[in-house]
């Protein structure tokens, strides 16, 4: 990879977002997966807890929006960075430029989708 390659140019930003994704994203998404993904569908949590009115009230609060944005967007950067390194580890280092671009483009698009989802609440 040459010195002026975009992946190297934006490496500090990519590593910053990856670091926030693995630390803050992991801490925040745990409760989402536990309650919204497992306990609520299994009926362990009361259906009223995540009824539309209450869920909308929680999610549209300014603090709720900020936490939701962290849950939705930060893990994407952890995911994209590790998918890229998964390919490097499995012997595809020579295609890193293409794979890296694809992974971070997906992360940018998903972050925009997360932002739009939170803003339109």
């Amino acid at each position, binding site marked *: 990879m040459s010195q002026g390659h975009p992946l190297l140019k934006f490496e500090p930003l990519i590593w910053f977002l990856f670091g926030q994704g693995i630390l803050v994203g992991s801490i925040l998404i*745990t409760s989402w997966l536990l*309650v919204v993904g497992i306990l*609520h569908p299994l009926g362990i949590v009361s259906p009223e807890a995540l009824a539309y009115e209450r869920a909308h009230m929680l999610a549209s609060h300014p603090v709720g929006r900020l936490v939701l944005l962290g849950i939705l967007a930060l893990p994407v950067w952890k995911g994209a960075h590790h998918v890229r390194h998964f390919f490097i580890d499995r012997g595809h280092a020579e295609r890193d430029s293409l794979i890296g671009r694809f992974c971070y483009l997906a992360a940018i698009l998903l972050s925009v989708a997360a932002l739009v989802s939170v803003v339109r609440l």
Partner: protein
Amino acid sequence: MPARKASHPQAMAPSAPGRTRTAPPVQPGSWQTSRRMKQYSRFGMTGWVYLLASISAIEMVYALGSGPEAYERMQGVFGHPLMVLFHAISLFSVGYVVVRFFGLFPKAQPARIGPLKPPPGPVIAATLYGAWIGITLVLSAILAGGIF
């Protein structure tokens, strides 16, 4: 001041190859199944899980913003046994990443941060685990209707 000219990259190389030659590096055929590679691959595969879990979460929040009907429909999708299984795998993956990352975090600290020394490793680890467990308990209580 005269401009300095970069030296030739091979300026310090011996004029002729030495008599003792080393064999070219060859990747062993078993590298993919070595213990360390399996660990790296497992850690790398959690990236796929994080991406998919984020996509499903974005869909749910998007549906919440689209109105009660879309939200109810998305809750139905989340209630499918395969989705519950996927979220259980995702939760396990997050736990795996957190334990591995929190174990690495104290070791990655610099010797000094400006004039200060970083806290001892166990203190850093305890702080990280405390934050993870505490925030998870509070957010879970809010989502489950225990608070607010």
